């Protein structure tokens, strides 16, 4: 008797419980339906069809701060007139998941160099990264520069020439030591693009690179006459770092390094290492 009373007190009425169970079953069915549907959407719209995915690249080593990986390097060539260019690989059609996509890729040194190296932080949508785009590969001086020498001696849009860097062994400014390397803020494959989709590049000419290239196969293949080029997009939240432009860098031992003012990441421009990352896909061509 006592038992049955307490059971009734403790537990809800069967009808109420049955309805609750009905609700749970209905909710669970809806959940399974939604999860399966979403997984299906992800698979059918899988971005890997447009390039991207896990790829290996070379970039400037992170020596401090929160950046998770190196900023990618842009291999360099120098033409007969002494102009400095970024290598853009030949475009080839590859079949991915039954679809033919164009990818700019080539074998360089011991690695496959491709346009996918630069596909992060929204750069993947920039017109300059479109593999088939017939664009100018010359590095050109950027519109706004924080280097006095660049503002005084050259004009924005001019192609970068080796002669502009003749004093690279002695050049210095008020930040860090002189003679480490002479930098410039340049753009690449971005003529006619608006400021928001201009590819920012940091170009440095340094003896350290020239010397390291003597006994490093990759640097021999990707640098010329001490020039090294880096896609200047921080791998930690996409800011544009600088080399010898921010006096605050000295507080983080970064006055001779590449320093990102956003969260104090530090990259050593003279240590190039190999790493992998997940490249984002390029957006699908529209209207075709």
């Amino acid at each position: 008797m006592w038992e049955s009373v307490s059971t009734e007190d403790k537990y809800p009425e069967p009808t109420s419980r049955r309805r609750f169970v009905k609700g749970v079953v209905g909710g669970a069915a809806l959940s399974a339906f939604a999860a399966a549907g979403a997984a299906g959407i992800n698979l059918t719209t899988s971005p890997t069809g447009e390039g991207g995915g896990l790829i290996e690249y070379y970039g400037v080593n992170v020596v401090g701060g929160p950046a998770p990986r190196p900023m990618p390097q842009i291999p360099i060539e120098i033409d007969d007139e002494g102009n400095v260019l970024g290598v853009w690989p030949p475009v080839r059609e590859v079949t991915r998941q039954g679809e033919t996509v164009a990818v700019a890729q080539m074998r360089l040194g011991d690695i496959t160099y491709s346009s996918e190296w630069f596909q992060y932080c929204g750069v993947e949508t920039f017109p300059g990264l479109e593999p088939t785009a017939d664009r100018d590969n010359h590095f050109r001086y950027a519109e706004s520069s924080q280097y006095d020498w660049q503002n005084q001696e050259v004009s924005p849009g001019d192609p970068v020439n080796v002669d502009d860097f003749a004093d690279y062994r002695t050049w210095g400014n008020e930040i860090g030591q002189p003679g480490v390397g002479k930098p410039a803020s340049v753009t690449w494959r971005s003529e006619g693009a608006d400021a928001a989709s201009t590819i920012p590049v940091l170009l440095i000419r340094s003896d350290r690179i020239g010397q390291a290239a003597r006994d490093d196969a990759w640097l021999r293949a990707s640098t010329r006459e001490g020039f090294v080029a880096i896609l200047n997009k921080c791998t930690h939240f996409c800011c544009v770092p600088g080399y010898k432009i921010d006096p605050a860098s000295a507080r983080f031992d970064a006055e001779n390094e590449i320093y990102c003012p956003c969260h104090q990441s530090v990259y050593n421009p003279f240590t190039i290492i190999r790493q992998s990352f997940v490249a984002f896909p390029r957006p699908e061509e529209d209207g075709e």
Partner: protein
Amino acid sequence: MSRGDPAGRRWPGSLIGGVVAALAVIALVAAPFSLPGTGVWVYYARPAVGPVAVGVLAAFFALVGALGPLFRIWPAIVGGALLALSLAMVGITVFWLTRVSEAIVFSLSTVDALRYHRWALLGFALAALVCAAWYAGASVARRSTAGRTGQAADGDSRS
């Protein structure tokens, strides 16, 4: 339909709280799509089941929570459905956020508040779960209390 019928149009605080949390989940799932670039697809699609499914579940949650009392569906049914939906939301969010790589979050854009995005998503999914449990508990327990007074409060009094 008598006045005071608990199966009638009543939205207790737990239900309103749950619906608000579900709307916040939907907003959080949708927000990164406004970023430039294609990174959000990579962020959401690794692993395959992630925030898109959570957003759909949150939409179901908000619909059931808002419309259940409007159509006078039994609170116990509504409570059970909300509990299952929010459990799935929390489960999928945990499954996803323990697998998503932080380097991908860093590569999305200059909006560094995104580092908290996945935790905020989990927070609101948990809030929805707590509200759903509270509401379900109250609606299942209601009958036994009401039953002792002889009132078939949660009974078959629908017209």
